[in-house]
């Protein structure tokens, strides 16, 4: 009881019993979790368990059938500039250059800023993701990885309290994905950015996350476990698999995805409390 009171004071985001129900179908229900300030939380689960819906609800683009989401102690009503989204398919506007795409976001954030100040901020954001040389190119002239970098710059540029990422690297090839993951890891650590990300790439979750939420399959999906990632930072892809504790951590998540995500679906074990799913520390 005391522990949860301490927790309550350090919650930036608090998801309280959200569900998505259609007549005759409950996709997920009783989903409770929180994100502390400066924390990186990953949600891992198979397709169809409602991960993207949960992210859209956090973004304010969708509303839950039950329950509520609190940000900074207040229930959210629709989208907000405090919660930036990095979309799965970059979602850049193809008629604008990279800089203009970012500037559009900046001008939405700072409506009173003069044009040159908006442009400077946009270029600064592109520089942070290493794209200042390609600022004047249209998305069609950028590679997939560069487009997603622009998407990241656009989200960073509005200085959100919470960064939401919906499988941001799933459309990229393995090499590009790797370098972008490290980039995001660096940017988020530098800025102390709070982030929530959906992924089904286990190594990506281990590299980036402080806590990994494991979701069972649908229908009636729930958060089955919360895995605390105790691997020390900074983590690098190159030596991640040499770190002590990496293998137990990875094995635990893989075991969950392969068997328990299925056996636990709609069938919680005795003593399961949806408000406090069991916390595990496989890495020791």
């Amino acid at each position, binding site marked *: 009881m005391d522990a949860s009171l301490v927790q309550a004071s350090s919650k930036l985001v608090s998801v309280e019993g959200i569900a998505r129900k259609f007549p005759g179908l409950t996709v997920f229900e009783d989903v409770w979790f929180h994100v502390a300030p400066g924390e990186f939380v990953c949600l891992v689960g198979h397709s169809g368990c409602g991960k993207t819906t949960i992210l859209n609800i956090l*973004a*304010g*683009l969708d509303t839950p059938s039950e329950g509520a989401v609190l940000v900074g102690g207040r229930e959210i009503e*629709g*989208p*907000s*500039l405090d*919660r*930036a*989204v990095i*979309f799965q*398919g970059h*979602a850049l*506007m*193809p*008629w*604008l250059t990279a800089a203009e795409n970012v500037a*559009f*976001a900046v001008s*939405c*954030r700072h409506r009173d800023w003069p044009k040159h100040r908006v442009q400077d901020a946009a270029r600064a954001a592109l520089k942070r993701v290493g794209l200042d040389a390609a600022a004047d190119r*249209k*998305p*069609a002239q950028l590679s997939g990885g560069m487009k997603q970098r622009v998407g990241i710059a656009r989200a960073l540029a*509005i200085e959100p309290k919470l960064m939401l990422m919906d499988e941001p690297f799933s459309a990229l090839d393995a090499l590009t994905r790797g370098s972008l993951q490290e980039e995001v890891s660096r940017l988020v650590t530098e800025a102390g950015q709070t982030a929530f990300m959906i992924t089904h790439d286990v190594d990506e979750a281990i590299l980036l996350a402080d806590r990994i939420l494991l979701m069972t399959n649908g229908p009636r999906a729930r958060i089955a476990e919360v895995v605390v990632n105790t691997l020390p930072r900074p983590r690098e892809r190159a030596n991640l698999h040499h770190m002590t504790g990496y293998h137990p951590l990875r094995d635990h998540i893989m075991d969950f995805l392969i068997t328990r995500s299925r056996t636990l679906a709609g069938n919680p074990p005795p003593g399961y409390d949806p408000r406090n799913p069991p916390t595990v520390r496989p890495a020791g």
Partner: protein
Amino acid sequence: MSAPVPFWRAALLSLALLAALLLGWEMAVKSGASSGPTVDPELAALLSPEAARGGQTAMPAPSQIGARLVELLADPFHQRGTNDQGIGIQIAYSLWRVAAGFGLAMLIAIPLGFVIGMSPLLNAALNPFIQVLRPVSPLAWMPLALYTIKDSSISSIFVIFICSVWPMLLNTAFGVASVRKEWLNVARTLQAGTWRTAFRVILPAAAPTILTGMRISIGIAWLVIVAAEMLVGGTGIGYWVWNQWNNLSIADIVIAILMIGLVGLALDRLLGLVARAVAWAE
């Protein structure tokens, strides 16, 4: 597919075809009544002295048309009374009517199409009206326009308006309705607001589709203006064609056809340039 054809080869073939056509035409006309259709003597007498003598058909040879063209283009903007105005003046009248009707249609169709595209309810509610009115020949509106507006020139502008409004309306609605949801979601998460979303996201996203509608509209408008001016008379290239028919100057009619084609091409190319400016590639 084979390798692309060099420009000069296509141009050379085009010129050769044109030369063959003109030469064949010239020969057919000059070879006289024996090969051409015989002309009613009274009509032939009206047409030209040569035709009356039976030495030639009513159809003018390209050389005669060419000479007449030079004559007309030497002073295209002369105004000697209501029935003798230069071909440039007539084309300018037609262009002005098309511009007025088309501009008016744009002012109505693009905002209305925007609203229809954004609202599935309005789309469903207005669809029956659009579907019934769209296939109506614009000229069928002419009597109604003349009766209500009473001014023949404004009536022809109205006819241009009514024929160019539909493609623009439908294309705008379609373009707006099919804007990618992800771009709208970006605007929503950035709290861009209605106007900013409309002008900075939806309009540029739908612009290529809207421009396609405008190009179809201007083509139809230019087709219809000739017919409308034949009906209402007074001024314009359509009236001029009809007038030359009454004068039985076939050469002038051929020239008018050529001019109508060239102006239509120019209008289409003009909008093509605008379309290129707003086009985007993924």
